[in-house]
C-alpha cells in the first residue's frame, strides 16, 4: 500500500492506495490505520483499495471546520469524488462504518454496495457501549480483542511510558486522533443515524466479531433490522478489532460484495 495525498475542498487528505480489482473505499475506526495492519494488504489482493485518513489521523492535516456528523459525511463524500471514484464498494470499520452508513444514507443513489464492519452509530439503552474515552490504554484490550493476551501484546509493543518524549508524542497523537473521533463518538456514539438508515439502498453486508465487547453483536442485529435487505456475518474468535484478529475471515466476508 502506498501513502498518498489528494486535495479535497476543505483540506488535503492522506490516503493509502493499492491492489487490484474493483475499487473499494475503506474508512478506518477511531484508532486509525496501523501501518502493520495485515488486513489492508490482504484486502488489496482482492480489491483496488483506497483508505483515506480522517483529518488529524496519522500525519494528516487537521481540519477545524469538521465539527459534526454532517461535516464528516460530506467531507468523506468529497474525498470519494476527489479520488474520481464512481460507486466504489464503500466499507468502514467502527467509527468508519458509522460514516460509511451516513454517506450511503445521505447519498443513497451513489452507492450500491456497502460493507459495515462492527459500525458505531446506534445506541441501545439495554446494551450501553463502554466509554472508550475514559479508558486507560491497559484497559482497552479487554474490550477490543477476543484473545486479550495477544491483544495486550499488540497494544503495548513499543510503549515507553517512562520516556517523556515518547509520552508527549503519544499524547499529541491521541489528542489529534481521539479528539477528532470525539466529535462523532463522545460522549455517546449516536448522532441520529437510526433515523436515516431507512434511506440506504445499497446491498449491505454487516460483519461482526462474535466476541466484540465494545459494540456487542446485538448492535449487528439492530443494524440488520434497520437496513432493508442487509446480511449479517458473524466471525468467530474475533473481538472489535476483527481486522487484527481475523483478517482472512474479514476479507473473505467482504468478498461477497465483489
Amino acid at each position, binding site marked *: 500500500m502506498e501513502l498518498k495525498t489528494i486535495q479535497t475542498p476543505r483540506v488535503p487528505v492522506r490516503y493509502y492506495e493499492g491492489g487490484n480489482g474493483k475499487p473499494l473505499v475503506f474508512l478506518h475506526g477511531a484508532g486509525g490505520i496501523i501501518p502493520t495492519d495485515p488486513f489492508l494488504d490482504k484486502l488489496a489482493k482482492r480489491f483496488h483499495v483506497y483508505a483515506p485518513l480522517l483529518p488529524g489521523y496519522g500525519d494528516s492535516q487537521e481540519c477545524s471546520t469538521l465539527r459534526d456528523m454532517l461535516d464528516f459525511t460530506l467531507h468523506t463524500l468529497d474525498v470519494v469524488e476527489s479520488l474520481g471514484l464512481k460507486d466504489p464498494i464503500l466499507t468502514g470499520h467502527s467509527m468508519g462504518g458509522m460514516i460509511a452508513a451516513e454517506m450511503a444514507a445521505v447519498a443513497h443513489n451513489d452507492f450500491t454496495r456497502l460493507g459495515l464492519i462492527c459500525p458505531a452509530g446506534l445506541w441501545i439503552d439495554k446494551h450501553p457501549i463502554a466509554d472508550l*474515552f*475514559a479508558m486507560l490504554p491497559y484497559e482497552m484490550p479487554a474490550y477490543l480483542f477476543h484473545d486479550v493476551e495477544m491483544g495486550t501484546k499488540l497494544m503495548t509493543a513499543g510503549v515507553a511510558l517512562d520516556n517523556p518524549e515518547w509520552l508527549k508524542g503519544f499524547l499529541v497523537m491521541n489528542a489529534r486522533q*481521539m*479528539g*477528532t473521533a470525539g466529535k462523532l463518538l463522545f460522549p455517546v456514539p449516536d448522532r441520529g443515524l437510526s433515523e436515516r438508515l431507512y434511506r440506504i439502498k445499497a446491498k449491505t453486508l454487516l460483519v461482526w466479531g462474535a466476541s466484540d465487547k465494545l459494540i456487542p453483536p446485538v448492535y449487528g442485529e439492530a443494524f440488520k433490522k434497520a437496513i432493508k435487505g442487509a446480511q449479517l456475518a458473524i466471525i468467530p474468535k474475533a473481538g472489535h478489532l476483527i481486522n487484527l484478529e481475523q483478517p482472512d475471515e474479514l476479507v473473505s466476508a467482504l468478498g461477497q460484495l465483489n
Partner: protein
Amino acid sequence: MKFTWFNLMPWPYLPDDFREKHRSVWVDIDSRLFDAEKSHEVYNTYMDLLEYAGTLGFDGIGVNEHHQNGYGIMPSPNIIAAGLARRTKDVGIVVLGNSIALYNPPVRVAEEFAMLDCISGGRLVAGFPVGTSMDTNYCYGQIPALTREKYLEAHDLIMKAWHNPDPFAFNGRYNKLRHVNIWPRPIQKPNPPIHIPGGGSVETYDFCIDNTYSYSYLSFSGYIRGKALMQGYWDRVAERNAPDTSPHRAGFAQTICVADTDEEAERLYSEHVLYFYNRCLHVYAGFADAPGYRTIKTIQTGALSQYAPPIDGYAHLTWKDLIEGGHVIAGSPETVRQRMEELIKGLRVGNIFCLMHVGNMPKEKAMYSTQLFAEKVMPKLRHLYPEYADDGRFWCKPMKAQVTPGSLPRAEDAARLARG
C-alpha cells in the same frame, strides 16, 4: 495583595478504605456515600465558615463549580454565593467561577452574575473557567475538541450581553438568540472583574493577557511545583508585550494551615490534610484529560494535566513530604509568613486563594487556623507589592452605601403603614 478565603466544600465522610474500594472521587463516585441529611449540616457549616472569614479582614470569600465530585459539593456556586451575599458586608464575593461552556444559553451566567452583583452591592469577582475535563466532558458531556470554541463563544455572548444597552441578535455556532437583552444588569461597569482559572494552557494565558483578566492557577500541588507553570505565564506576558507586569494579573491557590507552633500544626491538621490528599484527590486517571480537551500546543509545551497526580501518586506522601514539597504551607504564624512570602514573590501573584478548610477538618480547627492567619500572617503580607497597591483592575468595586440586611421597610414607610 488580595486574599480570598476559599472553600472547596469537600464531603467530610469518605470512608477510610475509600481508595481501595472506589476508583474515583469524581464523575462516577458512589452516590451512596452521600448522606443528604448530613449534608444539611455540612453545607450550613461551610457557609458559616465563609461568612466567618468575611468578618476577619479577608478581601474575598470564594466558591467554585464542580460536578459529581466528592471534594466539591458545589455544582452551583451561585446558590452559595447568593446566600453569602445576603449575610456579609464589605467582602468580595469571589465566584471562581461558572463553567460558561456548560450553560445553555450562556446568557444565564450573565444574568446570574448580574443578580449576584446587584444583591451584593457590587462585590462580585467573576470567574470564567473552561472547566476541568471531568466536569465539562465526562459529567456534562461536552465534546472535548469543541469545548474551547464553545467556551470562547459563550464568553463573547456574555460580554456583549453585559455591555450592549440595546437588544441584539446573536448568531453563534452554538447559540442562536434573536433577542438578547438581559435584565438585571451588573452594578460594576462595564463588567465585574474577571479571573480565569487555568491549568497551563497557552491559549488561556493569551486570553487573559488580551482581555486584561487575572490568570489563576488553582492546583493542589503547591507553590514549589506551581513555579514552572506561573513562570510560563509571566514569560508569555513579556512575549506578548502586555502593558505592565502587575502581580494582580495572577492568582494562586494554596493550602494553608496555621497554629501556634509548627508542631501544633502537624498535631492539629495532618489527619485532615492527609484525608484531602489521600481520599479527595483520588481521581481515576481515565477521567483526567479527555483527548482533544487540551490543545496540541499545550501538550507540546510539556504541561501535564493539573489533575495528573505525581507519577507515584499522592497516597504515600506524609505530612513531612507535603510540607517540604510545598503542597501545604503549615506551621506557626512566622513559618507560614515566610513561606507565603516566598510564594507571593516567587510566583509573582497578587491574588491568593487561601484553602484553609482542608478535607474533613472540623469547624473549630478551621476557625482557629483562619483567625491566626488573618491576625498574625495576612497583615505582614498585605503590602508586598506597594507599587501596585492601586491596581484595581482585577478586584470588585463595591457601592459606597450598602443596605443592611433586614433594613426594609424604611422607617418612613413603616410609619406610614402604621398610620394606615
